[in-house]
């Protein structure tokens, strides 16, 4: 067993799969087709009570894994979107100052000037005025799935701050006291690898590098997610998308773009991908004009 505080005798989550395959089955029920790697990584994260750190190209399904896990395990999903300059106030908690001020004024009026400083202060730092941000929320309503999305966008000081939370599953709010999760949340951290995340953080997590799905899996994802899509069209699309990924584009399409494209085609009532259809709908997959120009110039080779 791991020696850190996250492991040990803690109550099981509501749905507790006994093997990676069983978890993959549960995930499939929500429409997320996990390959053995993702299924094992998520299974181990669940069993070992360790955060799961997912890295990979944008659009490989890191974020949707967390969403699917929450649904499959019937747990609430709490999401923290990281950005440059994110701080404890935005991630953990804040005091509701305007309401505190009003409360103070009301007290003053009610007490007619006989306001005791200690009593006033005590009444200000109660749950009533505590604004729980995602991380605190996750501790309060655990068991749950906590998604810390795009951690690589946050400044690196933020990681140090996260470290403490992941280690102890608790935070101390000076004016209020400690908030500790009975059951540690299942934490999924994602990164697009725009910068390297501290080894200290990675060491506490399971690491999974998420690849684009293989051909058959991607076809299956399309058929699963776009109801009524023709099998032949799904295969054609997947072939084209996978070819696009090998074309050295500025932004190679991810699974999300493949889904967008499929949706666009079905919305137009197309059941085949020909050069003309592709040309008019290419904007659903490619988001740079340079990429569009390059692909339009060689549409025939795209369709094979």
């Amino acid at each position, binding site marked *: 067993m*791991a020696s850190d505080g996250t492991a040990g005798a803690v109550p099981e989550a509501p749905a507790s799969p006994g093997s*990676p395959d069983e978890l993959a089955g549960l995930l499939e029920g929500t429409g997320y087709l996990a390959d053995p790697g993702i299924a094992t990584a998520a*299974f181990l994260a669940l069993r*070992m009570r360790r955060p799961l750190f997912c890295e990979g190209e944008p659009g490989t399904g890191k974020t949707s894994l967390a969403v699917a896990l929450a649904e499959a395990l019937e747990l609430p999903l709490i999401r923290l979107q990281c950005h440059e300059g994110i701080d404890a106030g935005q991630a953990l908690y804040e005091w509701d100052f305007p309401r505190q001020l009003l409360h103070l004024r009301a007290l003053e009026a009610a007490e007619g000037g006989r306001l005791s400083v200690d009593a006033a202060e005590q009444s200000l730092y109660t749950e009533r005025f505590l604004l729980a941000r995602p991380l605190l929320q996750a501790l309060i309503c655990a068991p749950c799935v906590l998604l810390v999305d795009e951690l690589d966008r946050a400044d690196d000081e933020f990681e140090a701050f996260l470290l403490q939370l992941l280690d102890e599953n608790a935070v101390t709010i000076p004016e209020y006291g400690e908030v500790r999760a009975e059951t540690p949340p299942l934490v999924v951290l994602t990164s697009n690898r725009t910068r390297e995340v501290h080894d200290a953080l990675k060491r506490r997590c399971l*690491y999974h590098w998420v690849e684009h799905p293989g051909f058959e899996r991607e076809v299956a994802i399309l058929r699963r997610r776009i109801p009524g899509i023709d099998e032949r069209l799904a295969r054609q699309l997947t072939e084209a998308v996978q070819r696009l990924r090998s074309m050295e584009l500025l932004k190679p399409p991810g699974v999300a773009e493949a889904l967008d494209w499929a949706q666009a085609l079905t919305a137009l009532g197309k059941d085949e991908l020909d050069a003309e259809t592709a040309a008019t709908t290419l904007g659903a997959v490619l988001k740079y004009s340079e990429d569009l120009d390059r692909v339009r110039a060689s549409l025939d080779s795209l369709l094979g």
Partner: protein
Amino acid sequence: MSTPARGDDVLPGLVGFAAALREAGLRCDAHRVQAYLAAVEQVDIGDPRQLYWAGRVTLCSEPDDLPRYDEAFAAWFSGESPVRRRPTLPVSVQPRIAALAAESTTGENTADDERLSVAASEAEVLRERDLAELTSAERRHLRELMAKLRPVPAVRPSLRYRPARRGRLDARRTLRAMLADGGEPSRLVRSRRRTRPRKAVLLVDVSGSMKPYADSLLRFAHVVVRGAPSDVEVFTLGTRLTRVTRQLRQRDPERAMLDAGRAVADFAGGTRLGETLRVFLDRWGQRGMARRATVVIFSDGWERGDASLLGEQVARLRRLAHRVFWVNPHAGHAGYEPVQSGITAVLPYVDRLLAGHSLATLERLLREIAHA
């Protein structure tokens, strides 16, 4: 040693595997090995697929680890004897940059004192000297001068606030002050935005034509990295792109240079500036590293390939970065004209074309970065 499932005690096999991975260059410390053993307990180790993944998610920590893990996994669990697949330090790879430095480190120590006594006046002269034309003694002296540089990172506004005399009203602190005064809003506390260091990315061309400068420029990069270890990234460009930030973060310059030299496989080779720059932008730049950063390219712009690709990529860089500086050692020489195809292709997209052939010009560059 065959499959670990066979014997009663699988522990030595698993620990041995972790050791083999360490041998192959993965950073699997005791903490990770512990996690690995815990993970193996949770899966069915009779199933090679589960065994594979249990190790992969606990022992690997970056994409570069994955091929090495695959190789070691195949070798270890296929029943092959655990021979060292490759030595930890391939003896054939000589620390090429360190070799450049070594010329001067062999200089005798006894000469030190006399040399330093006249150093002050020499220093001024040396600052202006071309880095490519230094003797080994001068090179050594220059290294000392370089170590004394104190780069100041540029700043950008942060999202956070700090107390200030003017600025927006700070409700938290005002309330605190009110409580202290028994509820009277006697003092309004204000706050302003903090500043944060602006990221900087240094791209150092280490191709053949830049060889006389590469060692000094990497040393310079080391100084800049040490000044702000978490806000500076360094890559070398040549026939391929190599990230050397991690190596240059080490405090000891000699160690840092030695490790960087080991990492750079294409030292003094050819140039494919456009292509390597594209690799940088695809893998790192576009995803965030170059966004709002100050990017400095150290290169003579001697492009063997098609210069239009280089131009395209620098144009792309320009759209991502806050400032793009191009440092060309030849730009400081008398009579220099930016006529090489590479330079003419990039000129429209760079904010400044700077010289970088001497310590003085590198100091100027530091000032430019600080004010970028």
